[in-house]
Structure formats: structure tokens, C-alpha cells
């Protein structure tokens, strides 16, 4: 048993927060990029792409994130591909995020009135120009609040990386709890730190949403 003061516990947990933040940012940015690619592929109606992406989204939304991480971490290494916990978590969360974001954004693009498409194609804009100047700005306005809201889900999702041994906030909490035999205090601190991370984002998403509906 190690003697840990409350200060030691919170200091170690605070150090671990940066990994949670880093993993969230990586997943969010990477997932956003892949999600955008998938979205464009869907809008451009490349042949055969629609069922593929629908299957991709269904696969990631219909299975537990934990299983996806297990699969990447334990599954691939049993095939001889050595993946570190960090890589597995980053890849898993990125794919997971991309599946959700592409679906959210597709809804936003669909919410743009059909006449806007017709008008812009009547002006002889090609697909890239349509997206860049007409559809994109309008869809973006609708897309921001749910996207920010989903960021909370990503931050919470990173907690699952603890299960495959990546030392972010939850894993560090478990380690400290095992060393100090103070699980109640430690997990309360962990929960509090997540709350401090996520609550401002939730409030931000909500105020964005209110602004959006105020303008209508």
C-alpha cells in the first residue's frame, strides 16, 4: 500500500487528463476528415459506394466500441500484427467517430432545401462549386451544434481505451485506486474530471443550438 494524499491523487489524475484530451482530439480530427471524405463520396453518388458506406456506418453504430477496440488490439495481434494500445485506441476511436459524424452530417446536407441544388446546377456550378459555395455554408450552420455535442461522446468514448491498457484518465484512476485502496475517492475524482471536461462542451453545444433556432 502506498500513502497517497488527495493532492497526489489529483496531480496524477491531472497528468493523465492530457492523454484523454489528446486521444479525443486525434479521434475527433481524424474521424472528422474520414467522415468528410465518406460524406463527399455519398453526395457524389459514386457507383456502389452507398451500400458500402451504409454498411460501414451500421457496423460501427451497431456494435460496441469496446468490441471494436478489443478486435483491433487483441484480434489483430493474434494475426501477427503488433498494435500498441495507443495505436489501437486511436484507430478504433477515429473509425467510430467517422461513422457517427458522416451520418450526422449527411442529415445536415439533406436538410438543405432541394431547390438550392437545382438552382446552383442551373447556374452551371459543378459538384465541387455547389458544395463549396451553396450547400456547404448552409449545411455547416445546421451541423455545428450536433457536431459539438458529439465531441462529448468522443471524450467519454476514450474512457474505454483504459480497458485495453492505454493509460489515460480512467486507467490511471484504476491504477491509483489499486495502489491506495481508496476507490471511492479516486473514482469520484475521475468522474469529476470528466465532468469538468465535458460539461462546458455540452453547454456550448446547447447555446449553439439555441442560437441556431433563434435565427429561424
Amino acid at each position, binding site marked *: 500500500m502506498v500513502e497517497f494524499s488527495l493532492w497526489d491523487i489529483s496531480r496524477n489524475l491531472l497528468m493523465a487528463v492530457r492523454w484523454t484530451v489528446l486521444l479525443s482530439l486525434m479521434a475527433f480530427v481524424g474521424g472528422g476528415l474520414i467522415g468528410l471524405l465518406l460524406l463527399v463520396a455519398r453526395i457524389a453518388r459514386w457507383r456502389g459506394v452507398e451500400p458500402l458506406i451504409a454498411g460501414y456506418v*451500421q*457496423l460501427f453504430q*451497431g*456494435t*460496441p*466500441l*469496446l*468490441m*471494436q477496440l*478489443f*478486435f483491433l488490439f*487483441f*484480434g*489483430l*495481434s*493474434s*494475426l*501477427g500484427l503488433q498494435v500498441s494500445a495507443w495505436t489501437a485506441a486511436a484507430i478504433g476511436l477515429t473509425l467510430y467517430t467517422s461513422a457517427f459524424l458522416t451520418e450526422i452530417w449527411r442529415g445536415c446536407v439533406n436538410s438543405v432545401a432541394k431547390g438550392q441544388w437545382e438552382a446552383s446546377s442551373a447556374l452551371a456550378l459543378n459538384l465541387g462549386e455547389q458544395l463549396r459555395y451553396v450547400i456547404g455554408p448552409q449545411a455547416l450552420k445546421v451541423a455545428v451544434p450536433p457536431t459539438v455535442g458529439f465531441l*462529448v461522446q468522443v*471524450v*467519454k*468514448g*476514450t*474512457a*474505454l481505451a*483504459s*480497458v485495453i491498457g492505454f493509460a489515460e484518465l*480512467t486507467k490511471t*484512476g*484504476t491504477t491509483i*485506486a489499486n495502489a491506495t*485502496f*481508496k*476507490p*471511492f475517492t*479516486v*473514482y*469520484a475524482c*475521475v*468522474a469529476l474530471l*470528466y*465532468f469538468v471536461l*465535458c*460539461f462546458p462542451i*455540452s453547454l456550448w453545444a446547447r447555446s449553439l443550438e439555441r442560437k441556431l433556432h433563434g435565427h429561424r
Partner: protein
Amino acid sequence: MISLDFPAVLVEWPLLLKGAAATLALTAVRATVGMVLGVACAWARTYGGAALKFAVGAYVEAIRNTPFIVQLFFLFFGLPSLGVKLSPEFASVLAMVVNLGAYASEIVRAGISATPRGQIEAAQSLALSPAQVFTRVVLPPALKRVWPAMVSQIIIVMLGSAVCGQISTQELSYAANLIQSRNFRAFESFIIATLMYLVLSIAVRRLLHWVGPRFIFGR
């Protein structure tokens, strides 16, 4: 050379089936209790006094802004140091009920707030008591409006329940872990478990869309 051996995992089908059944049973229990809790919280946040509103609001925000796995660990590992000892199954169900309750209350509240004012006034002018107005006039259409969102949330919590294997609740992800630790076929066993989750989530979604109009809010 990579060689896949799915039969080595499939011979353990009783374990997998038992795991899937446990996942379904956990889901059924906590979907029911969680929804009742959600409706109660939505009622409290819509009609309750200021203190009640604040308390329920704090509960909802606390749950929605922390990861499920931390809530679960807090209940299972944290509470025993206060002298409350929970079995893995009970801790899992409790954590999921508390979790779903918070999300469900937000969903139901959105449905309730969309009730046209005139319907409530009409019900009041027919001399229905406040309780009758809520259970007969406000709630059923509110649930009907938000049912798709509710079904999605129930599925999300079911997929989240994979985490409960971590505190040795014997559900599907626990079975997959057990199998791969026996025969070292991690790739195959996680693929099969993942596919089973996919099938479960599609089946439960269908089932709930069938059950809702028939038994919960009427067509």
C-alpha cells in the same frame, strides 16, 4: 501464414449463447426500469418545484457528462468502501438504469414540452385530475413522438453494456474474452461476438419499433 479457425470458437456456442441471453436479459430489465425512471425525472423537471428541478437537473448533467465505465467502476469498486457491497450483476443493472434514466428523461422531456397547450386545457376542462392529465393525455403522445430517439438510446446503452464484462458480469463480451483466453483465437472470437452484437442491435431495434405502438403508447 495467417490461419483462421472459426470452428474453434464456434464449438463454444453454449457460452456465446448464454452471454447473448444475459446481455438481452440485462437490456430488458434496465430498459423497463430506466424508462420508468426517465419518465419520473421528466415529470419532476417539468412540473416539480424548484429544488426538485435542480436536483434532477444535476443528476442528469452528472450522468450525461461522465463515461459509463467510470459510473460503473464507481458503483462497483467505490461503494464497497462505504460498506455497500453490490454483486457484479446488480451493479451492472443499477449503473445502466441510472445511466439510461438520465438520457431517457431528457428525451421524454422533449416530447412532453411539445404537447399542445390546448390538449392540456381541454383535459382540465373535462375535470381530469393532474395525474390523469399526465398519464392519459400528455404522456402517450409524448412517448410516441420521441420513440425513435428512445429506441436508439436503449440500443446505445445495450452496446455500452459490453463494458459490464469488465466487472465480471457474465454477458456477451465476457464470453468472448473467456473463449479467447482459452483457445487464443482472439481475432475469431471478437469477430463473432461483434457480429452477434450487430444482430442483437438490429433485432432489438425491430422489436422495440414493433412493441412501442402496440403496448406502450397505442397507435
